[in-house]
């Protein structure tokens, strides 16, 4: 492989950056495509979850109501949760009670066992009995895409994996800007039907148009996990992460567990006190070290989105800290209160920018489309690499070159169309897997990964051009038939959704239909390429010789 590195830091800045952009971009583009496609779908995680769980109520318009009486007995829910924990998990180090609301009328319980593993379950808010979910379509829903997006379902290792590729993205963007001579002219340049030149134009136009979004989304993604990716400053200057956080947010210091038994304060009374001070309903109560002398209780106020009033900063629901034994209030942070100075404000804004946690539906659609533009930028980049070399091998890998090209081609097919098929297959799995089986949500994700793996096998076994067409047709079929599957399996369909004004569920099917039509068009284009006039072909050849 003596010729691979020719070009690294050689021949001036622009050429060195061209080398970095081509090779750095190539090895990163497949993983980044996965991050972008699943991230774009993850923007709509709630609508997708609702589509996958037909038993959930239709999304209500945010009322902005902060009234304390919304028909749910929250102190009762806290008592019920506490009783369940005392009976079933007395030794846990952490108890959390998710309070009932319009979104989910059950009580959600979370705990951390003495081995520090997290668990959760749900109990009925009226009876205190475990919720019988066997008749429900239990599913990870849209969270599956969010988890693929930031950790590939791989926990902390997965977050590091995504972070490393996000850094590659930043480097590819910066090197791409340096090599780009005519950044504004290319806004308006698109020469279709000219092979390689068209792919380059498409790649440039997509990248330049969406560049601000791509830079923002990559950087804010890294900033969201700064404590994991860049812990050096905290490690060098503080004893622990908790100490740093307590200092930054001027909150009570984290208490170590003492092992001295002490009865827990009446948490339902603490909840009532907290709600009266925050002047809004609470959403969550967390109890650290229950029945230990170091116990503390933290009550979170509900996040309330006011219609038409969008903010990038200071939209928190507020929180109140209590000593878990004496019940004394140790700190209160009012809704919208900002702490940690300008640096923390910047971090909060970055996080909200990344999560599209402002601006409602309009911004979410903008993010969805910009994210897809990013995915398309990566896809056109990957395709461009191969289109350029299919005509004339550049022989970068000596005698192994044809084999490396073949691997790249298979990776292109299996990632671009294969992942798209797997995403739709996840919806099919949701409707086809039987209800009431153990770990149903996990099986849906298994369907996703198995279909994706099969798409790589298929790409490896078929000639590239056939593989593209066949996978695009499979994608089109799965997308276009999804509404039919929904109607046959649970009796709901697009017209019903539209009639009910359920824009979220209808949106899922409309996007599926649009994707299906697009894939069908793409398959046709590849199967029967438009006849290119001789003159255009000549021009393309000239353009290529110049590039």
């Amino acid at each position, binding site marked *: 492989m003596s010729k691979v590195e020719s070009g690294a830091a050689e021949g001036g800045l622009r050429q060195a950056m061209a080398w970095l952009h081509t090779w750095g971009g190539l090895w990163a583009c497949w993983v980044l495509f996965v991050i972008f496609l699943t991230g774009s779908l993850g923007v709509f995680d709630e609508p997708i979850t609702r589509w996958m769980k037909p038993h959930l109520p239709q999304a209500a318009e945010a009322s902005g109501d902060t009234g304390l009486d919304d028909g749910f007995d929250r102190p009762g829910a806290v008592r019920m949760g506490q009783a369940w924990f005392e009976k079933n998990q007395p030794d846990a180090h952490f108890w959390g009670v998710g309070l009932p609301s319009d979104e989910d009328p059950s009580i959600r319980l979370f705990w951390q066992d003495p081995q520090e593993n997290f668990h959760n379950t749900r109990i009925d808010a009226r009876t205190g009995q475990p919720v019988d979910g066997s008749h429900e379509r239990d599913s990870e829903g849209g969270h599956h895409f969010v988890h693929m997006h930031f950790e590939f379902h791989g926990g902390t290792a997965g977050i590091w994996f995504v972070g490393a590729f996000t850094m590659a993205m*930043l*480097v590819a963007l910066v090197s791409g800007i340096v090599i780009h001579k005519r950044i504004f002219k290319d806004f308006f340049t698109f020469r279709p039907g000219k092979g390689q030149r068209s792919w380059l134009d498409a790649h440039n136009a997509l990248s330049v148009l969406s560049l601000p979004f791509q830079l923002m989304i990559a950087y804010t993604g*890294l900033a969201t996990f700064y404590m994991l990716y860049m812990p050096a*400053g905290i490690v060098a200057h503080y004893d622990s992460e908790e100490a*740093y956080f307590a200092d930054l947010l001027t909150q009570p210091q984290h208490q170590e567990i003492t092992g001295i038994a002490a009865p827990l304060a009446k948490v339902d009374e603490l909840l009532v006190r907290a709600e009266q001070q925050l002047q809004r309903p609470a959403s969550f109560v967390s109890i650290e070290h229950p029945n230990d002398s170091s116990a503390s209780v933290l009550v979170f106020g509900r996040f309330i989105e006011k219609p038409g009033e969008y903010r990038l900063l200071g939209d928190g629901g507020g929180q109140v800290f209590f000593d878990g034994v004496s019940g004394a209030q140790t700190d209160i942070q009012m809704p919208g209160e900002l702490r940690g100075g300008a640096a923390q404000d910047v971090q909060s804004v970055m996080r909200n920018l990344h999560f599209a946690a402002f601006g409602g539906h309009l911004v979410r659609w903008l993010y969805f489309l910009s994210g897809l533009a990013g995915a398309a930028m990566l896809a056109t980049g990957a395709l461009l690499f191969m289109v350029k070399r299919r005509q004339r091998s550049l022989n970068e890998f000596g005698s192994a070159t044809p084999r490396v090209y073949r691997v790249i081609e298979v990776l292109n097919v299996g990632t671009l169309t294969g992942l798209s098929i797997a995403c739709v297959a996840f919806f099919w799995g949701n409707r086809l897997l039987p209800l009431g089986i153990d770990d149903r949500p996990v099986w849906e994700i298994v369907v996703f990964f198995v279909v994706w793996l099969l798409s790589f096998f298929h790409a490896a076994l078929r000639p590239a051009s056939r593989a593209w067409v066949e996978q695009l047709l499979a994608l089109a079929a799965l997308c276009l038939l999804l509404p039919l599957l929904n109607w046959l399996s649970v009796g709901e369909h697009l017209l019903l959704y539209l009639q009910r004004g359920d824009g979220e569920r209808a949106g899922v099917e409309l996007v599926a239909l649009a994707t299906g039509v697009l894939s069908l068009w793409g398959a046709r284009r590849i199967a029967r390429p438009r006849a290119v006039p001789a003159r255009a072909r000549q021009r393309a050849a000239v353009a290529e010789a110049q590039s």
Partner: protein
Amino acid sequence: MSPRSLALLSRTAAALLGGYALTCASVIFLGAVLPLPKSQAILAASLTSFAVYTAVIVWVFATPNLKRIWWVLVIASLVLTGAGILLGGEA
């Protein structure tokens, strides 16, 4: 492995590992010297670090002299970390 492959490997390692080390050092140093309360200084430096890392990687791939790259990375990392810990008051 050919000398050119070795050089590429060394350059990539300099960019990824050396770059990360220098970036960590910059956070430790800025966390100590930025005129903000310590926790906020660390946060500000951490948020900036991803731009620093990007710049270092680009610099490594744009600079022909590999030996110089390694010297700069090692010395700058050591100096910034040492100064940051000394000025920060606690290790």
